[in-house]
C-alpha cells in the first residue's frame, strides 16, 4: 500500500494535535537572580538528584484540561544561583565541567528536593488568579556526609489571568510557578541561618563567628 506511511503520519499528527489541544504546558523560565546577601564563609557542594533535575508535574482529570509544568532545569538554575550567592564558594557536583579537585575539601553538601507541587486554576475557584504552592526540602550534610538538617521550605506564588483568554493560561501558570520558585529562593537566602538545627551546626563549626570577625574587620578598615 503506497499511501500507508502518509496515512499513518497524518494519524500521528491528528493524535498529537488532539492531545496538545487539551493539555497546557507551562514554560518555566530558567533565569533567576543571584541574592544580594553577605556570603556564609563555607565551601558547599550541591547535589541534584535525577528526580529533581527532571521534575515534571502532570495533572489530567478526565473531561478537563490537562496541565504539565516542567520545572527540572528551572529548579537547578534557581538553586544554583541562590546557593552560589549565599556561600563563599559553591560547587555543582553534577556538572561535568566541575574539576575533581574542586569537589574535595568541602565543608558541607546540600541536596534540594521537590516535596510537593499544587496549584489552583482561576476557572476552578472563580477568581482571576493562578495560585501555586511548592514545598521544597533542603537536606544539609556535613563534610562526613552526615545529615545535619532536613529543612522544608514552603513557597507560594500568584499571577493574574483573564479567564476568557484560554490561550494564555499556560503562561499565567508558568508565571505563578516562577513567583513561587523565587519565593522559595528568597526564603532560603534570608532564613537559612535561622533554621534552628542549621544555626546550631554553624555555631559548632565556628562559621558565624568567623563571618562576624570578618565584618568587624571590614568596618574597622572603612
Amino acid at each position: 500500500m503506497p499511501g500507508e506511511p502518509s496515512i499513518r503520519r497524518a494519524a500521528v499528527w491528528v493524535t498529537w494535535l488532539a492531545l496538545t489541544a487539551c493539555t497546557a504546558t507551562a514554560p518555566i523560565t530558567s533565569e533567576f537572580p543571584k541574592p544580594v546577601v553577605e556570603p556564609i564563609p563555607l565551601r558547599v557542594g550541591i547535589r541534584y538528584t535525577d528526580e529533581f533535575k527532571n521534575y515534571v508535574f502532570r495533572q489530567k482529570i478526565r473531561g478537563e484540561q490537562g496541565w504539565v509544568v516542567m520545572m527540572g532545569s528551572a529548579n537547578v538554575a534557581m538553586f544554583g544561583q541562590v546557593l552560589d550567592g549565599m556561600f563563599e564558594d559553591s560547587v555543582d557536583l553534577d556538572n561535568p565541567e566541575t574539576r575533581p579537585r574542586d569537589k574535595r575539601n568541602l565543608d558541607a553538601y546540600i541536596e534540594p528536593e521537590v516535596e510537593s507541587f499544587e496549584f489552583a486554576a482561576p476557572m476552578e475557584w472563580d477568581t482571576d488568579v493562578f495560585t501555586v504552592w511548592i514545598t521544597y526540602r533542603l537536606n544539609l550534610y556535613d563534610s562526613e556526609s552526615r545529615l545535619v538538617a532536613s529543612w522544608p521550605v514552603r513557597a507560594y506564588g500568584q499571577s493574574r489571568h483573564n479567564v476568557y483568554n484560554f490561550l494564555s493560561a499556560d503562561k499565567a501558570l508558568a508565571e505563578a510557578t516562577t513567583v513561587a520558585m523565587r519565593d522559595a529562593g528568597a526564603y532560603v537566602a534570608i532564613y537559612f541561618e535561622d533554621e534552628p538545627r542549621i544555626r546550631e551546626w554553624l555555631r559548632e563549626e565556628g562559621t558565624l563567628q568567623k563571618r562576624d570577625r570578618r565584618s568587624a574587620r571590614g568596618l574597622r578598615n572603612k
Partner: protein
Amino acid sequence: MKLTRICAYGLLWSVITSLAGGCMTARIEQHREARTGISDDEAIVILARSLHNGNDTETKFIDCVDNQLGKGANPLTVIPDEVFRDSYYPWFEPRTAPTGPADLPRLLAEPALAAKLAENRVRYLIWIEGSTEALEGGGSISCAAGAGAGGCFGLMWWEKDSDYEASIWDVKRALGSGTVSTDVNGMSVVPAVVVPIPLIAPTQGKACRRLAEQLKTFLVEGVT
C-alpha cells in the same frame, strides 16, 4: 464639496471625543511627612504593591508612571520595577518586601543590600497601590443584519474609576516622606447608529499623568 463633508465629520468626531474625554473628574491629594529633594545622580524606583496582599495595580500603570517621571521638565532617573527586584533579590519579593517605612532601618542593616543601594544611589522607593475598575453602567445595543444591509442601534454607558496611591520612602534618611494619591472617575459611552462608536474615558492614562506630575513636584521641589 467632498472635502467639506470630510471636514464636517472630522469636526463632529473631535467634538464627540473631546466631550467624552471631558466627562472625567480628577482628584489629587498629597500628604507630606518630611522634606524631600533629589540630586541629578540619584535614582528612584516605582514598585507595585504585591498581588499577594490583594493589590491589583496594573503593570501598564507602573510602566506609564516610570515613563512620565523620566521625561519632560526635571526628568528623574527611574529604575524599572522588574530590574530593581532582580538586582536587589531577595529583599523585594512578595514575602520579604518591607511593609512600611518603619522596616527601612532593619532592611538597611543588611550590609550587602545597603552597600548596593548606596552604590546605585537609590534615593526613593515609591510603592503604588490601587487599580482601575469598571463601576456600574447601563443601556443596551441591538444589532441586526439582513440581505445586503445591517446595523446596530442603541446606547451603552459605564463608569470607570482609577484610584491610586503612592507612598514615598526616603532610603537615604530611612523614613517615610509622605503619600500622593489620585482618583480619576469617567464615563465611557458607546452610541450606536448603524455603527457602534466607542467613546472610552481614558481614566487610567489621566491618573498616571496626574500622579507622575504630582510625584515630580513632591520630590523635586522638596516642600510644597
